[in-house]
């Protein structure tokens, strides 16, 4: 004979704001012989009971919090009021949201006045819902600020990052949802007040609360997905995202367990709150450090994601790598000379977005060959002319203010030079005071190129023409 199921769990899919919906659901369960025992964040726990018609009431009690081990004096006084009409608390929790049951078939309701019900719900929303909105806004603004910081230091890299745009869209949507939630609540509040006053009917909140909760979850998940895709690619990004979601559940679960343990141990609410928050903070910090290490090791620029070099060589006790990537412009093409094995050629597609492609290429001599010049360039391919000027500005600003190093040197400036020889529409050369440096910004119709030659180099017009042929085509 199989064991009779004594308890069951139900995934908490209803928002705690849906008073009437929950009350109907619990009454239905009670009639089927399942009595609510505990309301967790993720699951509601039921135990077997005599199948019976019972009335339930979801009550918001503001003068407490979820950290109390036992009901406070005020809550006990409240219980006495409710007990007078036969209402008794169903769950052992002493939090702000509580469920009461009544064995009578037609008991006097806990709330008989709609205006008061609306006010209590409004105050409850300010206490809980508003905090959630503020948290969402803080997360979204934090994401945008992090990107804003990136824009200051590496504007082109960010402009070329589709995932960064994804984060922007999600963050803006989250801000919109947060503000929308506040507006939506106040609209409901005003309407509910009118309904209560003029028609003595309660305007339910369920129409917007549940959808909004899902929207929050979706936007935060999408934002996290884009953030992880910015750092990782493809499959690893999905794994990373799943890890983050699991960690969120772990932190929330640990917090719950900690609070429950504090209650069982009979801690005061203050001590329980402090301890639980501390445990969650330590756990979050540990996870933060762990994530940082994971990024350093498994991220795109991390230890396990390095490119395999063509060959390596030893010089002065260190190992150097040599790559043989195909470069659009080489010193060989400019000078007509052959350098054999004395150079490393690297070409990287840094980022690719719907707006721009960002490449970096360089040809650098081996460490043991000091007399040879080197060549570096950055190519920004612009897909929409709308961002052309912005890219040009970013590249120029980066050179003049040396963003990457954070050392602002005002004496570095770009001066417009004759562009025809380069086959470009515009050309700039970098100057340090009066001294011309071998750094150029060349503007072609669909790309902007930042060229850095060796300081010993003297470019001829013929070599400039070659540059124009390569980048201007």
């Amino acid at each position, binding site marked *: 004979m199989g064991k009779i199921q004594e308890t069951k769990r139900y995934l908490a899919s209803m928002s705690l704001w849906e008073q009437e919906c929950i009350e109907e659901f619990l009454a239905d369960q009670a009639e089927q012989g399942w009595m609510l025992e505990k309301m967790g964040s993720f699951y509601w726990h039921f135990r077997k009971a005599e199948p019976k018609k019972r009335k339930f*009431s979801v*009550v918001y009690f503001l003068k407490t919090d979820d950290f109390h081990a036992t009901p406070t*004096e005020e809550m*006990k*006084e*409240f219980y*006495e*009021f*409710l007990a*007078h*009409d036969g*209402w008794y608390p169903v769950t052992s929790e002493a939090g702000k949201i509580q469920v009461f049951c009544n064995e009578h078939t037609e008991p*006097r*309701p*806990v*709330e*008989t*006045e709609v*205006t*008061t*019900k609306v*006010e*209590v719900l409004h105050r409850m929303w300010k206490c809980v819902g508003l905090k959630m909105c503020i948290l969402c806004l803080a997360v979204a603004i934090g994401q945008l600020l992090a990107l804003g910081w990136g824009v200051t230091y590496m504007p082109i890299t960010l402009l070329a990052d589709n995932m960064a745009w994804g984060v922007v869209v999600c963050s803006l949507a989250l801000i919109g949802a947060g503000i929308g939630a506040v507006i939506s609540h106040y609209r409901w509040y005003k309407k509910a*007040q009118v309904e209560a006053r003029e028609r003595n009917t309660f305007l339910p909140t369920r129409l917007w609360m549940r959808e909004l909760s899902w929207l929050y979850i979706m936007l935060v998940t999408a934002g996290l997905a884009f953030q992880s895709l910015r750092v990782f690619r493809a499959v690893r990004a999905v794994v990373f995202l799943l890890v983050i979601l699991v960690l969120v559940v772990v932190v929330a679960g640990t917090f719950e367990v900690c609070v429950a343990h504090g209650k069982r141990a009979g801690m005061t609410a203050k001590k329980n709150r402090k301890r639980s928050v501390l445990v969650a903070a330590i756990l979050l910090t540990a996870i933060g450090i762990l994530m940082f290490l994971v990024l350093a090791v498994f991220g795109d620029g991390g230890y396990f994601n390095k490119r395999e070099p063509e060959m390596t060589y030893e010089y002065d006790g260190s190992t150097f790598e040599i790559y043989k990537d195909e470069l659009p412009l080489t010193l060989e093409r400019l000078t007509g000379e052959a350098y054999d094995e004395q150079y490393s050629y690297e070409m990287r597609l840094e980022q690719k977005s719907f707006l721009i492609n960002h490449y970096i290429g360089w040809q650098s001599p081996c460490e043991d060959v000091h007399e040879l010049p080197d060549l570096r360039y950055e190519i920004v391919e612009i897909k929409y002319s709308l961002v052309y000027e912005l890219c040009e500005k970013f590249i120029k600003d980066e050179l003049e203010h040396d963003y990457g190093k954070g050392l602002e040197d005002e004496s570095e400036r770009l001066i417009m030079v004759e562009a025809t020889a380069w086959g470009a529409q515009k050309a700039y050369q970098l100057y340090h005071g009066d001294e011309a440096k071998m750094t150029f910004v060349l503007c072609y119709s669909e790309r902007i190129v930042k060229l850095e030659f060796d300081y010993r180099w003297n470019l001829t017009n013929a070599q400039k023409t070659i540059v124009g042929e390569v980048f201007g085509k």
Partner: protein
Amino acid sequence: MPRAKLQTLTEQMFYILLCLKEECYGLDILDKIPNMTGHRVNVGSGTLYTLLEQFREEGFIRETKVEGRRRSYIITAKGEEVLAREYERILAQVHDYQLTRGCK
């Protein structure tokens, strides 16, 4: 905005204040009102608890005695004023009704 809300009393608010013309335990109001109104008006226990708290915050009532968790209250001068204003409003309504229907 509870202040603005309490400028006009609802029927249940009116009867709660009316009960507190004499010192009374909060809980006893739950039975007093139905008795007073022939069960026409009923105040739920949650509603009563919230309203007593609001009235106390607004200074319409004051606490007179605490015995364990049982508290008794009585109406204040401010509460009397609000109650009288509500009475005047109801009278005006009755007057208007009678005038319109030619009952006078």
